[in-house]
């Protein structure tokens, strides 16, 4: 169980146990499952299309979303850089990029889209354009219109 002092990269050089302690790397007691890039999840309702991506460590500037007609383009990049002034001892948090272009199943109000980043989870909501319903056009009689115009002229 108490393995995994060096997680590769440093070769198989044998170092005395005391040196390990002095050099003092943190020993992991469990290991994560192979870390895969997250998957984009889609859901549609009567009102909207929702997209969700678990993206810890991603900031707004790492996300690019655009809608052109029914075409949605999404690109999310996660950086995994060694912070300045630090040396990497263990790096499990992977760098990844999720990029998708897809055809939306219905028209959306792109100008009313809501994109949020909350505790490392990105969600995008695209409100659906309501299905076309018949619109009744009122008919104005020419005579009535003429009368109103006369009245307006009188008051003016």
């Amino acid at each position: 169980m108490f393995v995994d002092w060096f997680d590769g990269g440093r070769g198989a050089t044998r170092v005395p146990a005391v040196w390990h302690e002095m050099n003092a790397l943190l020993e992991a007691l469990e290991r994560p499952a192979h870390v895969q890039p997250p998957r984009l999840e889609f859901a549609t309702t009567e009102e909207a299309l929702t997209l969700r991506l678990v993206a810890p460590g991603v900031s707004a500037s790492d996300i690019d979303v655009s809608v052109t007609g029914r075409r949605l383009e999404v690109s999310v990049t996660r950086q995994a850089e060694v912070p300045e002034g630090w040396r990497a001892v263990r790096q499990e948090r992977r760098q990844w990029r999720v990029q998708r272009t897809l055809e939306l199943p219905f028209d959306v109000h792109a100008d009313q889209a809501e994109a949020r980043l909350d505790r490392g989870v990105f969600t995008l909501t695209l409100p659906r354009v309501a299905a076309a319903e018949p619109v009744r056009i009122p008919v104005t009689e020419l005579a009535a219109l003429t009368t109103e115009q006369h009245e307006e002229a009188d008051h003016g």
Partner: protein
Amino acid sequence: MAETTRWHVPAVDVYESDHAWRVVADLPQVDRESLDITVHEGVLKLEAHTGSDGYRRSFRLPRGVRGDGVQASLANGVLTLELTKPEEARPQRIAIA
């Protein structure tokens, strides 16, 4: 708690400087309130809950590291811990006579 928790092992980076270690863990959707960080008998333990999911990870610490030297911050679903190195783990400058 009747609900069963699905436990995950979060991905963690460990960085080192001359004076400290930095532990960075992916904990998406985790709130400050549902996060538990403990140092006990030389083991650093992280535990967090988000609904029916939970995250757990522990590390054996080098001798001399104490819990009161740990600083924690949570942002964008990422936890960053900084542990001050004990004096004996810091590089010593050797004066040349």
